[in-house]
């Protein structure tokens, strides 16, 4: 890059800047960027204009007003109360609640299952290792959609409500779903009871989470005593509240089972399919993470006299976590996105409700744009939460942060 030579600047005047020319790398970079932005803008503007023209010409209404109108269609019951006279916005909220429900449960189950299978893969017990390997290979090499359809087909092979399977008292399994005994509350006000229960649960959990801050043996025994106290408190609270709960068993009414908890076959198939599929990937990630921890660590732990289980828990896993968490984050995100396959088996998640809405209103652009925003939002939240956890793990335990 050559610059034209400059005469010595006259005193009191700023130096002359080189003229704009295509030889100048900066000018070229500015031009490249301007062209790229211009092309992107042109594409967006052209598509936007064409779309608006097409919508107008076909007489399709635009705008988000439809969200306030009554939806008119019924949806299977879910976490959010909804009836056909509620608005499309309400239906979308129900879809979102359903998506969150299956995603969060799926993440929990997939993680637990994935870690177990990943560890089993490395077990010295040949049967465990082989079964895990077969499981992982089988699940990873078939499409998720096929697995979902398989589980759904299995659920539809069950008998009808009158001939429902009754493996345990109060538990019924039939083509309409799984029906379990549920808890019904009729004691003190639910908020009070829930609050007490929350406190009784949160205190021991918080102590357990922060227990890695206890550095010395004295601290650790104090933590144990606190935990024990917390557990006792929890038991007391449970007994107090337990008097307010009663177990309601499902019973067969004219058509369906009434009462208790019901799990629809669509939800069950989606949850099982998503969890087993993601668990296989998490198992491989966990295995890779554990293998990545140097053999020296394992040998040192053995030399210290730690059993395999304790070595795993205290030495290997904390270090493996650093390697495991970023790819696991992306698996969680994949699970959340894969929950959209619910549209293929009739579970009312965000995608299904969007599909139903755009079929009834014809406003495809707005409906799909909303769905995209919802998924992007979920993406951001999960990434953010996992990044926080990752930062904490990457930083190391409390004692290593002093220096």
């Amino acid at each position, binding site marked *: 890059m050559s610059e034209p030579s400059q005469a010595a600047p006259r005193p009191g005047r700023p130096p002359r*800047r080189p003229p*704009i020319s295509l030889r100048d790398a*900066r*000018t070229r970079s*500015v*031009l490249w*960027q*301007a*062209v790229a*932005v*211009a*092309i992107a*803008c*042109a594409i967006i*503007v*052209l598509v936007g*204009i*064409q779309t*608006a*023209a*097409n919508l*107008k*010409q*076909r*007489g*399709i*209404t635009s705008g988000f007003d439809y969200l306030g109108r009554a939806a*008119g*269609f*019924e*949806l*299977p*019951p879910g976490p959010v109360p909804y*009836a*056909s*006279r509620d608005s499309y916005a309400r239906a979308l909220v129900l879809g979102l609640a359903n998506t969150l429900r299956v995603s969060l449960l799926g993440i929990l189950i997939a993680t637990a299952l994935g870690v177990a299978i990943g560890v089993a893969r490395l077990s010295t017990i040949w049967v465990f290792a082989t079964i895990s390997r077969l499981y992982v290979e089988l699940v990873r090499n078939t499409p998720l959609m096929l697995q979902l359809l398989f589980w759904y087909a299995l659920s*539809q092979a069950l*008998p*009808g*409500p009158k001939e429902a399977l009754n493996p345990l008292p109060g538990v019924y399994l039939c*083509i*309409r779903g799984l029906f379990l005994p549920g808890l019904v509350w009729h004691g003190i006000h639910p908020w009070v009871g829930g609050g007490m229960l929350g406190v009784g649960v949160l205190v021991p959990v918080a102590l357990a989470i922060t227990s890695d801050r206890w550095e010395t043996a004295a601290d650790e025994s104090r933590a144990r005593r606190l935990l024990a106290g917390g557990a006792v408190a929890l038991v007391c609270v449970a007994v107090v509240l337990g008097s307010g709960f009663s177990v309601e068993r499902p019973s067969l*009414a*004219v*058509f*369906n089972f*009434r009462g208790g908890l019901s799990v629809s*076959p669509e939800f069950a198939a989606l949850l099982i399919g998503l969890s087993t599929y993601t668990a296989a990937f998490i198992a491989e990630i966990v295995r890779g993470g554990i293998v990545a921890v140097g053999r020296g660590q394992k040998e040192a732990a053995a030399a210290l006299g730690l059993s395999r289980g304790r070595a795993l828990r205290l030495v290997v896993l904390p270090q493996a976590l650093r390697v495991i968490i970023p790819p696991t984050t992306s698996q969680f995100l994949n699970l959340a996105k894969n929950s959209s396959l619910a549209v293929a088996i*009739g579970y*009312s998640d965000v995608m*299904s409700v969007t*599909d*139903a809405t755009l*079929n*009834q*209103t*014809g406003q*495809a652009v707005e409906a799909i744009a909303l769905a995209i925003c919802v998924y992007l939002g979920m993406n951001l939240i999960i990434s953010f939460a996992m990044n926080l956890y990752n930062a904490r793990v990457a930083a190391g335990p409390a004692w290593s942060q002093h220096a």
Partner: protein
Amino acid sequence: MDVRHCLLSSAVLVLSVYPTAAIPGQPARVPAVETRSHRGGETPTLDGVRRKGFVQCGVTTGVAGFSAPDAQGQWHGLDVDVCRAIAAAVLGDASKVRFTPLTAAQRFTALQSGEIDVLSRITTITFQRDVQLGIEFPAINWYDGTGFIVRKARHLKSVRDLDGATICLQPGTSNELDVADYFRKNNLRFTPVVIERLEEATNAYFAGRCDAFTQDQSTLAAVRARAPNPDDHVLLPEVISKAPFGPGVMPDDLRWMEIVRWSVYAMIDAEELGLSSRTIDQALASSGDPSVQQFVGTSGSFGQMLGLDSRWAFNIVKQVGNYAESFDRNVRPLGIERGINRLWKNGGIMYVPDVR
């Protein structure tokens, strides 16, 4: 980056974005909705049909009596005959039709996107579809209503007995909305099971996933005929809504809309005039009735007014038949009576303008 570079990049941006924004985004034709008397608007669908040499007809994925393929892949049904009538009128040959099977959820977007020329698919005409989706329904070719099919063994006498039941339904149908409204109005509750494809929904009903399946009465009759044991199932007596069916077209081609309308009317008019595929040749040759002459095209210039051959109605009746023939061929074998679909002078409500 200094001021001169800023100016340079802004200049590039403005020079390139401004022209694209100024392009008046091509709707490719002006909607001809200003006056009804002129016939100078463009006719994209009609031109497309003439250029392709066939009519692309959107139908169901297989509902006996209305649109279903046989073992050789030939389509038959009341709605199929509407499409064949349009082809006979426009192209002179009722076999120049291609069929696109569509689910209830796919049908409107297929029409709106131009994938099909006409939607003849047991589509209920509703305010929302006419106004919000912007689809035009030029004529009604079947009057029906939403009903329920249940197992006979349940001994249900009316829809009110379905309180608390599980009901299979399809998304994107008017039945879905009718059921929700009816149950809400009568303080009944039900659990919906939403399945998109008709065959899967009926299989779910037969397997016992739901206690009842809701669809239009005529579709339910076809479903019952397909059952492993048709006698195990019965249609509930109540028809909880009105469901007029008719072919649907996009509003940007008025001429095409009129052709579709008058193709349907022609078949009904032919029955009223007593013309059938067997008798129309003779009527063409020797009828003295002025109405018949105007219909078959020996007098008047109705075909030319539509931009079609003067034998347009003759071709329809000769190649496809009149409404009664179409019904007898397709729907009667399912055990469905004509009911209110009879001609007005026979006690029904089929009352259409004459070709005059």
